C-alpha cells in the first residue's frame, strides 16, 4: 500500500500520464508515418536497400527540387515583408479609420482554404481573367498586351496572399504587446515611423516573425492544390511530382524519396528555428 501511495504521489508518473496522449498522437500520426516513408524511400521494390529511388528522383526532378526551394523561399521573403508592413501600420498608423479597415480586411484570406484560393486565382490571374479585364477595362493596357500569370508567379501570388495574414496576425500581436513608452519616446525625439519600425520594433519581435515565417515555409512546402491548379508549366513543385508518381505509376518509392528530400528542406528550416531558441536560452 505504501509503495502504491508513493507512486500516486510521484509527480513524474502524473506528468507522464498527462503527456502520454500527446506522445501517442505524435508517435502514431507523425513519427510512424515519417519512419515508414523514410524506409520506403530507401527500399527497392524487390526488397533490400537501395538508392535507386533517389537517383531517379534527382534524375527526373532536380529542376523541380530547385524550383520548389526558390518559389517557397521567395514567397517566404515576400510574406515577411508584407506581414511586417501590415503589423507596422496597425501599430504605428495614425489614421484610425485606415487602421480599422486594414485590421478588418487583412485576416480574410486566413479563412479561405488553399484549394479555394487556387480556384479563385485560376480565374483571377488568367490571360483573359478578372484582373486583366479590370486593367484593360480601365484603359491601362490593350487586350493584346495582357499576359497570363498562371505560372510560377501565380503560385507566389497565391502563397503570399494566403499566408501573409497568418504571419501578420502573429506579428501584429507581438507588436501590440510591446511597451508603448519606447515607441512614444522615439516619436518625441523626432524619429520617423519607418525608423521606429526598423530599429525599435523589429528587433523586439524578430523571434515571432521567424516562427511565423518558418511555419509558413513548412505549410507551403506541403501544398498540392495551388501548384497543380495554377501552374501548368514545367518545372513544377515537388508535391505535384509526388502525387504524379503515386497516381500515374503507383510508385511509392520515388514519391517517398521526394518526400524525404522535402523533409530535408524543412529540416534545415527547423534547425534554424531550434538554433534561434537555444541562442535565446528559452523555449522558442
Amino acid at each position, binding site marked *: 500500500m505504501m509503495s502504491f501511495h508513493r507512486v500516486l504521489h510521484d509527480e513524474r508518473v502524473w506528468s507522464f500520464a498527462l503527456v502520454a496522449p500527446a506522445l501517442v498522437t505524435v508517435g502514431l500520426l507523425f513519427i510512424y508515418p515519417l519512419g515508414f516513408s523514410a524506409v520506403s524511400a530507401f527500399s527497392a521494390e524487390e526488397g533490400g536497400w537501395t538508392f535507386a529511388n533517389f537517383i531517379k528522383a534527382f534524375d527526373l526532378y532536380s529542376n523541380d527540387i530547385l524550383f520548389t526551394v526558390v518559389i517557397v523561399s521567395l514567397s517566404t521573403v515576400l510574406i515577411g515583408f508584407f506581414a511586417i508592413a501590415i503589423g507596422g501600420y496597425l501599430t504605428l498608423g495614425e489614421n484610425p479609420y485606415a487602421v480599422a479597415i486594414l485590421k478588418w480586411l487583412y485576416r480574410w484570406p486566413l479563412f479561405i482554404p488553399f484549394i479555394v484560393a487556387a480556384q479563385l486565382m485560376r480565374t483571377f490571374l*488568367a490571360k483573359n481573367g478578372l484582373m486583366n479585364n479590370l486593367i484593360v477595362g480601365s484603359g491601362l493596357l490593350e487586350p493584346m498586351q495582357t499576359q497570363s500569370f498562371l505560372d510560377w508567379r501565380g503560385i507566389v501570388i497565391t502563397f503570399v496572399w494566403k499566408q501573409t495574414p497568418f504571419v501578420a496576425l502573429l506579428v501584429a500581436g507581438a507588436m501590440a504587446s510591446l511597451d508603448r513608452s519606447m515607441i512614444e519616446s522615439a516619436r518625441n525625439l523626432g524619429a520617423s515611423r519607418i525608423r521606429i519600425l526598423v530599429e525599435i520594433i523589429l528587433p523586439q519581435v524578430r523571434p515571432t516573425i521567424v516562427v511565423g515565417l518558418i511555419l509558413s515555409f513548412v505549410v507551403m512546402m506541403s501544398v498540392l492544390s495551388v501548384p497543380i491548379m495554377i501552374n501548368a508549366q514545367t518545372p513544377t513543385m515537388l508535391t505535384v511530382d509526388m502525387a504524379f508518381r503515386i497516381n500515374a505509376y503507383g510508385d511509392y518509392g520515388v514519391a517517398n524519396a521526394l518526400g524525404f528530400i522535402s523533409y530535408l528542406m524543412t529540416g534545415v528550416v527547423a534547425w534554424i528555428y531550434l538554433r534561434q531558441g537555444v541562442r535565446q536560452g528559452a523555449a522558442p
Partner: protein
Amino acid sequence: MTKLALMRTSVAVGLAIGMAGAVHAQTINVLTAGSQNMVDYVTDYLGPLFEEQNPGVTVRAAGTGPGDAGSQKIFEKLDAQMSAGSDAWDVDVAVVHQKMAGQMREADLLGSYRGDIATGDLVTRATAKMALGVDVDGYVMPMFHSQTAIAYNPDLVPDPPSTYEELKEWVAANPGQFGYNGIKQGMSGVSFVVGWMYAHSGQEDVLSGGPYDPALKDGWGDILAELKSFNENVTFTPGNAGTLDMLNRGEIVMGPVWVDMFYTWQADGRVAPNIKLKLIGPGMPGQPMYYIVPAKAANADLGKKFIELATSPTVQAEGIVKNFNWYPGIDAEHVEDSLEPADFDKLFADVTPDDLASKGKVFPIGPFFDDILESYERHVQN
C-alpha cells in the same frame, strides 16, 4: 383455430416481418473513381433509381477522386481488406479506370459476374474482354466509353488540322493558340501525348497490344525531342477543365478535351455553342470506365443486380447518353431504340461513328503506358 395455432401463426408472422425487416435494411456500397460528374451520376440518378426498384435497399455512394488516383484508392482499399484476410469486403460495386481494372484482375481482387447478369451479352466490344493487355473477360462491364478529341473554335479556325502532322504545322504557324494540359494535370493531355506517340512511332499495335518490351522506349528520344519543340509553341492549360476554360475565354483556340465533358459543359452553357470537335488522325485514345464487383463483396448479389440495372438499354440511353453525353458502355445499337433520334445524333454529330471506329484508339498496355509517361518526364519536361 386453437389458441396454440394462433400463437404459432402470430410468431411466424412476427418472424417473417422481422426477417423482411432484416432484408429491407440492406445497404450496398458503391465507390466511384472519376470526376464529380461520375459521382453525381451514381448519387443523383442511378442510386435513387435502384432504391426505387428495390424497396428497403439503401445505396451508399462515394467518390474516390478524379483520374487514376481515384482508382488507386479503390485498389488500395480492396488490397488492404484482402491482406487483412477479411471475408466480407465493404465495397459491393466499384467504378474504376481501364488501367486499374487490369491491375485489380491480376491481383485477384475482382469477382467474375458478367455471365451472371442478363445484360452481360449486350456488349461485344473488345474493351469488355481486354483492359490494356490484361484479360478481364467476365470481370467487367463497361459503364460508358469516353473519347478524347480536339476542340476548336470554327470562327477562328475554319479549316482545322485533321492529323497530328497538320497540327504540328498549324501550331508552328500559330504559336500559343493551341493548348493542352501536359501529363500531370489530367488525362486529356495524357491522351494527346499517347496519340502523338502512336502517330510518330509507328508502334501503335505493339504499344496497345503487347508484348511488353522494356527496350522499346530507348528509341523514343527523337519523337519526344520533336514534341518538346512542339511544346515551345503551345500554351499549357491547368487541367482538363482548364483547357475548356481557356478555350471559352478565348485564350486558346484549340485543345484536346474529353468529348463527354465538352458536351456537358456546352449543354450547361459553360462552353460557347459554336465550339466544335474534331478527332484527328491517325487517332486519339479513349477509354471505358468499368463496373466491377470485388471478389469478396459482402453483398455481391445486390451488386450484380445494381450493375444489371446500370447496363440495361434504358438506363444506358437515358443516363449515359442523354444526360451525361457519354458513348454507351453496351453496344450502341441496343440504346438506339430507347433514344430520340435527335439525342442519338447529337452525340455523333462532330465525331461520326466512322471516325470513332477508325480513329478511336485504346490506351497502351500498363507498362508501356508508364514508359511513355516517364519518357515524357525525362525528355520533354527535364
